[in-house]
């Protein structure tokens, strides 16, 4: 199977869309809501670190209903690559969940795929996510990602 590195982002990091025609949102640290969907949510220190740093963060093991309040109120959603969305697709797992979230919420939420694996398989359609991050990244990298994604909403 062909693999590509997680950091081989195919999407350009610069977009004219951000300069023209996009209204500035009012999101900031005080009102943005972040959700982590991860089967190991109880054992993932970044969540507590973000809370301690003053961010509004919730973590759930999986999504029961795509229209649950916890999903609706979150603007930035981190989805684990493996261990979630198994009821949707045993093979795609996190990717299948992202497809569902993007299908329902379109561009109103930013969805970030993260993984403990340093490689994704090309067959996994990783570009369904808005961005990607390694699960063992520093808390500072998670914060940087949140700040960056907030601006894109």
């Amino acid at each position, binding site marked *: 199977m062909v693999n590509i590195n997680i950091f081989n982002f195919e999407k350009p990091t610069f977009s004219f869309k951000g300069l023209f025609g996009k209204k500035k949102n009012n999101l900031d640290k005080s009102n943005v809501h972040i959700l982590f969907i991860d089967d190991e949510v109880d054992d993932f*220190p970044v969540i507590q670190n973000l809370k301690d740093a003053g961010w509004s963060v919730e973590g759930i093991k999986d999504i029961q209903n795509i229209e649950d309040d916890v999903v609706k109120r979150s603007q930035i959603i981190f989805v684990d690559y493996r261990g979630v969305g198994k009821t949707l697709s045993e093979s795609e797992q996190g990717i299948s969940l992202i497809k569902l979230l993007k299908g329902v919420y379109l561009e109103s939420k930013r969805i970030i795929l993260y993984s*403990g694996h*340093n490689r994704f398989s090309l067959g996994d359609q990783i570009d369904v996510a808005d961005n990607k991050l390694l699960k*063992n*990244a520093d*808390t500072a990298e998670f914060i940087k990602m949140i700040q960056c994604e907030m601006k894109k909403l």
Partner: protein
Amino acid sequence: MIYFEIKRENGDIVASNIRKCPYFDLFQKERNLTLRSKQLKSAVKKYGSISIWLIVESEENLLRSNRLFNKMMDLHAMLVHNFSEYYFSKIRVHSHTLRTIQGKMKQKIDGLAAKKDFQGKDYSESKKNIIKKVELNIEKTADTICFLNKRVAEIDAHIGGFDVLYMGDEQDINAESVNIKKVLLNIIAPFLGDFEKQGVSINFAIKDDYADANKISLDYKMFNLALCNFFDNAIKYSKPYSEINITFLKKDHSFIVEVSMMSLRMDQDELDLIFDEGYSGKYASYDAGDGIGMSVMKKALNLTNMKIKIEPNYSESEIIGGRKYVRNIFKIISI
């Protein structure tokens, strides 16, 4: 002699002993060459995304028959490639596990002190900065140290497990006389936080005097490896808000450690399968891991002359959140 080199399309060598060939330099320039006078034949062949380079020296049958030579190439390509892929896949699983644990350790330290907090003109200044952090966050520091202690135990278990499963039986076994209660208390300590989160309590029904008077002989490293994998599974599969009872009995030179708990159901036909590498149990498919914990446990116990047996009591059962729990009794018995 037969020398081979198997390469991927990108140039990565999958397996090779070709440099041991005394004629390596000669054939490196011209790889498809037969030198009958020296009883040598070299050839390269492509198999899908891999290529194989084979050099045969003084192997009369292979030198005389192109059909046998080609057959030998096919066999090397198939066997060596499949074996190496098998071991690569195992290495990937373990490297992923270790990376995950390392990530959690790093992030937990992050929560106490960020990278910039470690900055200083020398180690002494760096330490002073951290002392300030610790003094202001005593509770958090203790939590971080316990967390790190658990992760170090996990890393030990994974590295030890890898050795036991894939490095053959070349293990250094040193049995010594131990107090089983003290050993179990030591092993379980790093897991207490996770059991507490699940509302699971551990009850040691072993009297201190009895354990002291009835020391047993075991290899601590192997026993620790086995039990770390066991408790790691117990955290995942024991019934929330239940009790795990541990008993110990010694008679003459044999002994038995019994762990009784309400945990995920295993059917009768699974009781042996559960110790097979990669098998996680039919009732655990949703949250199963890599399915190696129990196989590591069995092998490590065998290496220290013990075996494990599971005795489920299906009459004591419960369904909670769609998960089927029964009373499972795990018996670790000296051989």
